[in-house]
């Protein structure tokens, strides 16, 4: 496993912006004094005139993005997920989503994998907050390949999009033939006994758990649902009909995020047994990212253990 390439999706985000700057002259990137951390500095190096540092004022930054979009630009507003989805929530709702403006929110440092900074910076509520806003597209890519393609897809889509990127390096699980489409899930491993739906950093762990389950004779299907909204209900229902058991994995509160979205879909159309793996209604804490992911059972071992209990 050690030879697998690992890249943080925030890095992929910054690189994608820099690569796409020439093709999309309307692209403008906003940051809130975190260009080095969000990696929008990679865009700034190539297009300094189109990189606007708004300083430590996230609410205003969302409004600036709305104004730029109203005047025909394609702004990406970047900061940590906590401040994008949390602090500036009402600006995102009222200044961006309600007028249906073409603003992209590039939120980095989501979840407990922020690590040592602790709970104040570990946003575990952003899927829920963004998903409930009418018309908002919510995307959480799993790896470098998907993250880069998601940035392009967001630019080519006309309307508000929330993109969540991580701080920590994650394995590249997709190959170069992979094609990301907004609203389309992707079956990474076919199986018939249980469906594991994951996104973001938990996709690699879900695949590892599936391998361990396979060794014990349980054939798990693993689906990457990188678009939380709109949800690929067709794919989910087909898999649930086949396996009859669905587990969701996310680096987010089990309330309101991917698990809730999947539960909403299945409970209405095809009720099956479900397990929601995520952070169980609590705040995060300080520590190295890998240790926290292990403690909160979001790594391969933790996901495997929880699914084993669920299947008993």
């Amino acid at each position, binding site marked *: 496993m050690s030879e697998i390439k690992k890249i943080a999706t925030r890095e992929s985000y910054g690189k994608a912006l820099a690569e796409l700057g020439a093709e999309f002259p309307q692209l403008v990137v906003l940051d809130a004094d975190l260009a080095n951390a969000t990696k929008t500095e990679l865009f700034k190096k190539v297009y300094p005139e189109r990189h606007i540092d708004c300083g430590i*004022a996230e*609410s*205003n930054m969302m*409004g*600036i993005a*709305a104004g730029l979009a*109203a*005047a025909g*630009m394609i702004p990406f507003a970047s900061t940590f997920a906590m401040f994008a989805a949390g602090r500036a929530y009402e600006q995102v709702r009222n200044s961006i989503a309600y007028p249906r403006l073409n603003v992209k929110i590039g939120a980095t440092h989501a979840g407990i994998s922020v690590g040592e900074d602790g709970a104040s910076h570990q946003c575990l509520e952003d899927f829920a907050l963004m998903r409930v806003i009418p018309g908002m597209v919510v995307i959480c890519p799993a790896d470098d390949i998907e993250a880069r393609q998601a940035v392009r897809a967001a630019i080519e889509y006309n309307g508000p999009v929330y993109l969540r990127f991580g701080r920590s390096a994650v394995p590249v699980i997709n190959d170069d033939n992979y094609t990301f489409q907004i609203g389309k899930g992707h079956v990474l491993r076919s199986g018939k006994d249980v469906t594991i739906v994951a996104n973001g950093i938990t996709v690699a762990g879900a695949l590892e758990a599936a391998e361990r389950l396979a060794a014990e004779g349980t054939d798990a299907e693993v689906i990457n649902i990188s678009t939380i909204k709109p949800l690929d209900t067709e794919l989910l229902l087909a898999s649930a009909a086949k396996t009859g058991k669905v587990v969701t994995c996310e680096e987010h509160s089990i309330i309101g995020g991917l698990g809730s979205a999947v539960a909403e879909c299945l409970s209405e159309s095809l009720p099956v047994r479900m397990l929601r793996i995520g952070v169980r209604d609590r705040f995060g804490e300080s520590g190295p990212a890998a240790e926290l992911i292990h403690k909160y059972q979001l790594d391969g071992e933790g996901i495997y253990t929880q699914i084993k209990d669920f299947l008993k």
Partner: protein
Amino acid sequence: MQNKELKRTANAVRKDIVTEVHAAKSGHPGGSLSCADLMTYLYFEEMNINPEDPANEDRDRFVLSKGHCAPALYAVMAERGYFPKEELTTLRKVGSRLQGHPSIIYLPGLDMSTGSLGQGVSTAAGMALAAKLSGKTYRVYTLLGDGELEEGEVWEAAMFSAAKKLDNLTVIVDNNGLQIDGRIADVNSPYPIDEKFSAFGFHVITINGHEFDEIRSAFKEARETKGCPTAIIMKTTKGKGVSFMEDKAGWHGTAPNDEQYAIAMKDLEEADHE
């Protein structure tokens, strides 16, 4: 436009405001009446706009940051020919394009959806920045309430606008001195307003917001100011033009009943003959 004609138009706007809010049986007449002269000047004199081509990329933009004064904006837009005046009495009703607070997804000709205080000024700054980035010469105007200055986002936007040298942005403050809970000086005073904007890096002009000569010269000065945004602090009277509404916080968000409507319209009819 001559001052006499502007006054007559502003008075028609005031009648429209009172008629709209009366028909809706709710809404915000006080702050709409205090900015009626300014709104008339912007839409009939100052801004480079064309009601026949409301999405023109080069048009000047207006953001009503104090979005609750939508009745004033709708009235002036109807008077200017953006939509039929008959539509004004649909304000706040189901199916109307005239939402309680302005919404661009309902009504063409609006430049931004507003209503949540403090947010409009940021979006106006974003539009001004867009003009700078794209090499366009349009100007952006935004109107704030004085109570709205209590919102922290206003000052984030002010800091940004000065730091980015948005001299194509004019921020107007409708200083009628009243907010829902009483006098702004008593509730959570934003005074001194002029010194605050000045400290944030704005060129500041203080005027009487009911005198067209002063309004005209202020906008001329704003256009000629380079390197920084301009703030026009206009002293106004809340409820201006309707005797029983003037300088009364209680008329911030209350609609007149039939009897009060008749008195208000009589007051405004008389103003036409002054």
